[in-house]
């Protein structure tokens, strides 16, 4: 294994992972801040470093449509998008999942208009949370890179056969150069293996893909999707374990940070959790027993695990990078639901942060921790939702 770090942005890490996967087909349309993935991958194609048939489509709708066509025909097919691009492909995002095509899509999280904004939040992927895709969230460029390979294995697993979104934070991760430790091409090839799903349009007998499915069978097909999602968590655990054993890189579905003796934690996803970890280290020096919990998987939601992890604490604050107007922010809402049947419930509070790329800085996280202490001690703000850093 290489031990040499490279300076890569999250987008470059994604493109490098795609190059090493060497997919049969990539159909993609550029959108900020996903563009550097497309540009870098185009370079790989231009230089003959991949065997990929690249389809430079005329819209995201066609990107996902062509990806579905390619995957249906039996190709390892990938795409990437962000925000409004994901919104434009929305209809086909559902079709990809319900047709059970193991597509891997890079999603560079960006605020979904309007007003138009090109910076990070999770409103795009959270809107697609019920589309039937698996969603993995990455904290930094290294995680982005590693997640791609695991995502491919998860998507193509015979018990799963569902598409996967590998999410990274727009600009914050996608455009930030960080240390990334790449794997050798041969190692990647060996880990991802040969595709084990059938080419439905190259089969011995002609198949019909995507028929009209009415009242008499539609629910049976939905039940199959429902059931497939139940297999995902054990499959991910197995693949993460294999990844750790093969490459000495350990990933958990729910990552805990300094929780051993903590009585309160911050829960959140993606890049903000790096900042949270640093602030926790600072607070620890002041004797404040705070920790962090980072779900890497949002769909399927690891409800049982999250309940088990979080029920150890007296108070928890959930950081959501998107709102669900008129209801509970997504991560907060899922965690509330996970606790419904629990006997022991911590005090819980929600902060919505970082919308449209608003910098969630160290001072804000300190404020969250101070709120957390109050919550732990008094329970006063239990079940409240606030915006962090809004004027």
């Amino acid at each position: 294994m290489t031990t040499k770090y490279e300076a890569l942005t999250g987008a470059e890490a994604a493109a490098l992972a795609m190059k090493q996967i060497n997919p049969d087909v990539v159909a993609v349309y550029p959108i900020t801040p996903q563009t550097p993935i497309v540009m870098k991958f185009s370079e790989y194609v231009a230089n003959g470093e991949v065997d990929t048939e690249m389809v430079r489509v005329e819209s995201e709708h066609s990107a996902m449509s062509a990806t579905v066509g390619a995957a249906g025909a039996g190709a390892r097919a990938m795409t990437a998008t962000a925000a409004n691009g994901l919104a434009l492909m929305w209809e086909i995002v559902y079709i990809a999942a319900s047709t059970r095509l193991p597509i891997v899509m890079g999603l560079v999280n960006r605020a979904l208009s309007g007003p138009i904004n090109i910076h990070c939040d999770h409103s795009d992927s959270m809107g697609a949370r019920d589309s039937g895709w698996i969603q993995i969230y990455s904290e930094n460029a290294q995680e982005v890179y590693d997640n791609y390979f695991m995502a491919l294995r998860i998507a193509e697993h015979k018990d799963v056969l569902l598409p996967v979104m590998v999410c990274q934070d727009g600009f914050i991760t996608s455009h930030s150069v960080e240390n990334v430790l790449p794997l050798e091409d041969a190692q990647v090839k060996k880990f991802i293996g040969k595709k084990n799903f059938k080419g439905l349009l190259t089969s011995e007998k002609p198949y019909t893909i995507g028929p009209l499915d009415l009242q008499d069978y539609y629910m049976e097909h939905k039940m199959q999707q429902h059931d497939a999602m139940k297999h995902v968590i054990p499959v991910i655990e197995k693949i993460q374990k294999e990844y750790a054993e093969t490459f000495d890189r350990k990933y958990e579905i729910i990552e805990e940070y300094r929780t051993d003796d903590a009585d309160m934690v911050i829960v959140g996803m993606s890049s903000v959790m790096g900042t949270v970890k640093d602030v926790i280290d600072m607070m620890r020096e002041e004797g404040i027993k705070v920790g962090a919990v980072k779900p890497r998987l949002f769909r399927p939601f690891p409800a049982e695990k999250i309940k088990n992890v979080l029920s150890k604490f007296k108070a928890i604050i959930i950081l959501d990078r998107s709102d669900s107007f008129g209801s509970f922010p997504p991560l907060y809402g899922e965690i509330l639901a996970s606790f419904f049947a629990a006997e022991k419930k911590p005090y819980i509070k929600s902060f919505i942060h970082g919308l449209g790329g608003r910098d969630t800085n160290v001072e804000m996280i300190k404020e969250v921790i101070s709120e957390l202490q109050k919550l732990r001690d008094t329970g006063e703000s239990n079940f409240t939702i606030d915006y962090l850093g809004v004027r």
Partner: protein
Amino acid sequence: MKNIFEITWYGRGGLGAKTGAILLADAAITANKFVQAFPEYGPERQGAPIKVYNRISDDPVRVHTAITNPDFIIVIDPSLIESIDFEEELKDGGKILINTDKTPEEIKTKMKLGSKDANIYTIDATGISIKFLGKNIPNIPILGAFSDITKMIEIGEIKKHLHEKLITKYGQDIIDKNIQALEAAYSEVKQ
């Protein structure tokens, strides 16, 4: 986070600040450091003032926020000098490196420093660049000056990195010229 060295570059869009920050990050990685390099993105086009950031540390860098109080400010385009609030921005005791043919004393009067205790350095990166490379690419001389001032990254590491980075794309001649520019800058920093 205490051990992270933070840098803010001031430049103009399309004129090298971003490339400079990435080069610095690259070189720092060659020197076994952990890094970040990221621009502050807006819709601006070529020529607009921009900020680019670097973090350099011996430990993995986890924080993902903008840099508001850097240890080090690099001004790659001297025409921006009067618009930067050094007093507000710079960490106490921090350092400022300016691409100019003037001395720190000469340029200090134009800078908004207030009561800030700052160490100011200048380097004629543009002049050096034109002399050795034939065009205005001030990044390489800036890196040489940065190495000289901070001693964080040995000039030898930068040379090694430049060699690795440029050899396939540009060949030995270009590398030699870049290294000459780097070395010239290393010895021409004014304080």
